[in-house]
């Protein structure tokens, strides 16, 4: 064949791009990698050795890795960047991969923190789930969005959602919209977002299949598909909906007449929301414990969480 080698070259480049896209590292200084070897087990020692840190930040040098939920990834990434900025010598590498990946990798010990939208017990074997310690660091909300051509629909009740997502209603004029067929855009069945929506809104009803149903991989792919498809409806995380680049292309709906806002997630009146769980294998120690403390501290809970459209869990 003429171009076998070229093809493999292209594959290798593509693979490298994929790896690059999934993993990003927040590093305070170029020397951080050297510091990995010298990870200090005791937080107190490290504090003494890093006088540059903000007074409220418990600094531990070293390197940890997180993996899991893409819905939580923007928050963890921003928190990791802030922590690395406050604590030179600390490196937190944030990976996506999905809730299942996060849970199985933290149970296997290959990452320090596994992020998940759903509880460990619902994914892992009981023995594995029992080893994990849950740290709820935020509340996260999801919003039902449609293509902007679905005019006149600003609210869907739980019953209307059930009728639409089970395939009983197939045209927007059945729920007060234009004469336009409904196109359902799902996340994969294994997705934490889909599981949460199925449980909290649909009450476990059997979702429609076939004909007018699409399945897209991620929050980003769903957003693109909704904006490109007439009559499309889907469910995405707040942080993706509130991204200025997306907001004008989407029509966000109320649920049972309640606005999809962080305030309503906080006071529990908006029901399509869940805890953001960070799991550790056994009790956290060293940098992992310090980073989890940082996630519960005022900088993350008070500033980063509202900025990224999550709900805080710690009182300020």
């Amino acid at each position, binding site marked *: 064949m003429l171009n076998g080698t070229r093809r493999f070259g292209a594959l290798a480049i593509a693979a490298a791009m994929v790896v690059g896209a999934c993993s990003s590292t927040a590093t305070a200084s170029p020397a951080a990698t050297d510091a990995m070897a010298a990870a200090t087990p005791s937080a107190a020692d490290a504090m003494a050795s890093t006088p540059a840190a903000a007074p409220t930040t418990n600094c531990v040098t070293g390197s940890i890795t997180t993996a899991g939920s893409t819905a939580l990834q923007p928050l963890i990434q921003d928190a990791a960047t802030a922590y690395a900025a406050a604590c030179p010598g600390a490196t937190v590498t944030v990976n996506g991969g999905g809730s299942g*990946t996060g849970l199985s990798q933290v149970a296997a010990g290959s990452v320090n923190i596994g992020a998940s939208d759903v509880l460990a017990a619902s994914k892992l074997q009981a023995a594995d789930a029992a080893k994990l310690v849950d740290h709820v660091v935020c509340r996260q909300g999801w919003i039902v969005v449609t293509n902007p051509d679905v005019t006149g629909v600003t609210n869907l009740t739980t019953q209307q959602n059930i009728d639409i997502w089970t395939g009983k209603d197939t045209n927007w004029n059945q729920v007060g919209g234009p004469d336009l067929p409904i196109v359902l855009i799902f996340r994969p069945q*294994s997705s934490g977002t889909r599981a949460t929506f199925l449980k909290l809104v649909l009450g476990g009803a059997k979702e429609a299949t076939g004909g007018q149903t*699409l399945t897209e991989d991620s929050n980003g792919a769903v957003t693109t598909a909704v904006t*490109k498809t007439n009559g499309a409806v889907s469910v995405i995380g707040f942080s993706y909906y509130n991204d200025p680049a997306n907001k004008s292309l989407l029509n966000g709906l109320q649920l049972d007449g309640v606005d999809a806002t962080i305030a309503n997630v906080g006071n529990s009146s908006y029901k399509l929301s869940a805890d953001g769980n960070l799991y550790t294998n056994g009790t956290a120690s060293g940098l992992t414990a310090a980073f989890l403390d940082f996630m519960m501290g005022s900088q993350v809970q008070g500033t980063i969480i509202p900025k990224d459209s999550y709900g805080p869990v710690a009182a300020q």
Partner: protein
Amino acid sequence: MAQMTTTYEKVSLRAKRRWQDRIDIPQVVVFMAAASMIAIVALLLLFIFWQGIQLFVKDGQSIGTIFDSTWNPLADTPEYGILPFILGTLVVTVGALAISTPLSVGLALFLSEVAPNWAKSIVQPALEIFVGIPSVVWGWLGITVLVPWLSDTFPKKIALTLPIVGQVFSMPGFLTGFSWLAGSLVLSIMVLPTITSVSYDAFRAVPQELRTGSLALGTTRWQTIRHLLIPAALSGVLTAVVLGMTRAAGEALAVQMVIGNSPTLPAAITQPVTTLTSQITLDMGNTVFGEPWQDALWTMSLVLLIISVTSVVLVRVINKRRLGA
């Protein structure tokens, strides 16, 4: 001049050579390279085979379930029928080959028989660039350009004015553009360089004497192509199509972005379908190693592997017949 006498070292004919002389280092190096490649392939085959049968061995599903048409891992009694994925892969691939084969073989004939050198010097680098374009770029083009065009412009402005095509596009169900058709179109572009380059080689391998002989008999260039070149290079062209098929069946990313991933049996070319590869990429991150759901994904990988092994065997059989003839 120096003294001409030479003193010969006393060497016994049975003398032991040094170990460096006894071992042919370059030979060992290339042998190791070949052996490690074979070992990697063998381990991979073993691993995927082992993981692929776990659904039947460990999770107690019967082998027949894979030909079941219901995929619902979340049900109280989970169903792991992967027929929709197998058929989806099959129809999307066949669609892509139906579009791509005539184009690619035509292009190969153009390059080998018709094109003047200056045209070759443009088309060949262009094909090589084609090969190097990552699949995500094709998928991205598909989702931003092709899918909206298929759902909007084409049915509303073009198709409805055509006699039969208009009927198809006014059928209920053709709405979203995310479809079997979109998947086949994207794939047909991606396999085009593979089929073209392999069939080009096949046409070039036909001895020049046959062409000149044929032309000496007074045939036109078209007659030579039709009655001489195509029959002579047929096995090579078939090899090209099978290789294209393997590439198409194994492509995940670009297809997943445009086919809608709806796990139902393919009913119409305008409907969303799903494939083995796209379901694996959708679910692998969210399932946990060892659970039946992920075992079902491994079974899909095994099916993909069987498809590609079958096509390798097919290529070898085709080539053996060519060499034997």
